[in-house]
């Protein structure tokens, strides 16, 4: 079928809740193994280096030096570029490009990030480095937070500007880039102190929590300016605010604590000419209308495993935000048959595609996602996703 829009026009139309020529596709892949398979390159064998007993022993001793040389940060710059290239090669319309030069290694098994989280270093089945696994927060008191060295956080906008300039120069006309980083304001307030400590601080020291939020609000706005300067057309506000049973804290308290910050972030993005969507895992029904009030152009994840039904979300906020995601990554994109993948895409488009304002996307990145099934997802979008839609919403 012929396509009359460029990928940039198509994604813009969907984000502006207009009908594009076809339902756009949105890539969220962050896994080394699949990305390097797609672009047919060999990644640096980090897994081997960290798990081999001889090289691991070197890393155990030389970790501070490795951090100082910035070699891992440069690897993150390169990875963001490579994962964009993978999205282009697969033929996606839009891609969520994370740029996260935040890890600092203690030794071959553990790391911290620049915000105050401790992690275990992990690798996938093929020995590639995976997203480090959060173990605990290192900020045990307001004094810890005030004393935390924040220089790397403050230097990041300049670094991300350089990384995204290269991406946009090379591929900005081939795909709609949505920049992102870890972490959003909610995750950055609770994770470095741990959820138990955070919950108690909400009750006993709310002013401290507000101070932390304000710091990260300012930081996020600086990142937006850096992206806009690089020519990035969109941003993802990445911040898991819900669990599988619902929001992690009372939505009233979320609004009180984070509402003004979210509004400033979306206003800043819009003033800079960027679109901005919010990503959160979990059962997000109680947050959707508030996010729309805050000015987000779209919402991503909409996890079926958390009980999120696309038709219900469309009814709730489909006239205010573009819906993105809902493709299951526990079965459909992992081990389902081609018929199942096609049916999942057909149903998603039937439930959310009417009038525009929907983009097909996996709910998250995961090492078990099958490239073959991603291909089927894209093929099915070609089959069912052209406007005017020929499929109707399911009864």
């Amino acid at each position, binding site marked *: 079928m012929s396509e009359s829009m460029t990928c940039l026009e198509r994604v813009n139309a969907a984000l502006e809740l207009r009908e594009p020529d076809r339902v756009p596709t949105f890539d969220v892949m962050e896994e080394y193994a699949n990305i390097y398979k797609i672009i047919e390159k060999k990644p640096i064998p980090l897994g081997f280096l960290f798990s081999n007993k001889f090289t691991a022993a070197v890393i155990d001793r030389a970790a501070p030096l490795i951090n100082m040389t910035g070699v891992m940060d440069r690897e993150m710059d390169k990875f963001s570029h490579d994962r964009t290239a993978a999205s282009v090669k697969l033929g996606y319309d839009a891609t969520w490009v994370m740029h996260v030069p935040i890890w600092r290694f203690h030794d071959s098994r553990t790391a911290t990030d620049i915000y105050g989280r401790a992690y275990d270093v992990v690798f996938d089945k093929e020995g590639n480095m995976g997203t480090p696994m959060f*173990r605990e927060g290192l900020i045990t008191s307001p004094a810890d937070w005030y004393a935390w060295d924040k220089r790397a956080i403050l230097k990041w906008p300049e670094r991300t500007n350089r990384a995204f300039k290269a991406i946009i120069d090379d591929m900005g006309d081939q795909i709609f880039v949505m920049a992102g980083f870890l972490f959003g304001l909610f995750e950055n307030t609770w994770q470095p102190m741990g959820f138990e400590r955070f919950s*108690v601080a909400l009750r006993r020291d709310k002013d401290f929590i507000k101070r932390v939020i304000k710091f990260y609000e300012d930081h996020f706005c600086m990142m937006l300016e850096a992206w806009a300067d690089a020519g990035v057309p969109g941003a993802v506000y990445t911040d898991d605010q819900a669990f599988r049973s619902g929001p992690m*804290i009372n939505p009233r308290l979320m609004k009180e604590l984070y509402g003004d910050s979210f509004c400033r972030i979306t206003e800043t993005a819009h003033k800079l000419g960027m679109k901005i969507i919010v990503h959160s895992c979990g059962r997000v029904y109680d947050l959707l209308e508030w996010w729309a009030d805050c000015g987000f152009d779209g919402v991503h994840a909409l996890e079926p495993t958390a009980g999120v039904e696309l038709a219900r979300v469309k009814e709730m906020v489909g006239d205010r935000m573009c819906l993105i995601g809902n493709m299951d990554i526990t079965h459909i994109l992992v081990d389902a048959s081609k018929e199942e993948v096609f049916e999942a895409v057909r149903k998603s488009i039937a439930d959310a595609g009417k009038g525009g304002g929907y983009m097909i996307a996996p709910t998250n990145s995961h090492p078990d996602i099958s490239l073959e099934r991603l291909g089927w997802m894209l093929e099915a979008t070609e089959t069912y996703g052209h406007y005017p839609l020929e499929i109707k919403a399911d009864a």
Partner: protein
Amino acid sequence: MGEQLEALNKAMVELDLDAIAPLVEKALEEGEAPVDVLGAMCQGMTGVGALFEKGEYYLADLVLAGEGMKEGLAVLEPRLEAGALGGKGTVVLCTVKGDIHDIGKNLVATMLSSSGFEVVDLGVDVPEAQIVEAVRANGAKAVGLSVLLTSMVQSIADVVKALEAAGLRDQVKIAIGGACTTDALAEKMGVDAIGRDAVEAVRIFEGFCA
């Protein structure tokens, strides 16, 4: 219920952290039996659970209730007779091998303890052999496995197999919970139940240990 116990129950339900420990002290000073003080706190936790199920309380509120319970028990526990806690049975609880997420698991542990279970919390990233040993050593009737990461679900099947191999599967029931768990996964892994949240977990384990 006496005035102090009413106030304690109310403080628990309203998550008034600063009031709980002083109210426990006061109730004991005024001659309330420690076991009744514990009862008032547990009743408060049940109230918190009910509000969570109604959608009025959220995850952070369950955590706060757990903190309140801990602060109250710090005062109360030295005064309780042996066996006052944990009468409903023993549950072995952990996050499975390869996964280190513990918020949900900790909440389940708190809710079970305050509902009268003895909880053997093995922590996170726990190999199946350690679970088998804990079941055997504690005569547990139930095992709770938490898993957040889809990539680690196979660890659930490993636990089931290890309990079967040790000849313990018939004496324990297994429940799973966590972001990636589904009814289909529970069936595939051969476990007995799936809990959507910490409040539902209490009901499941009450059923297991009845």
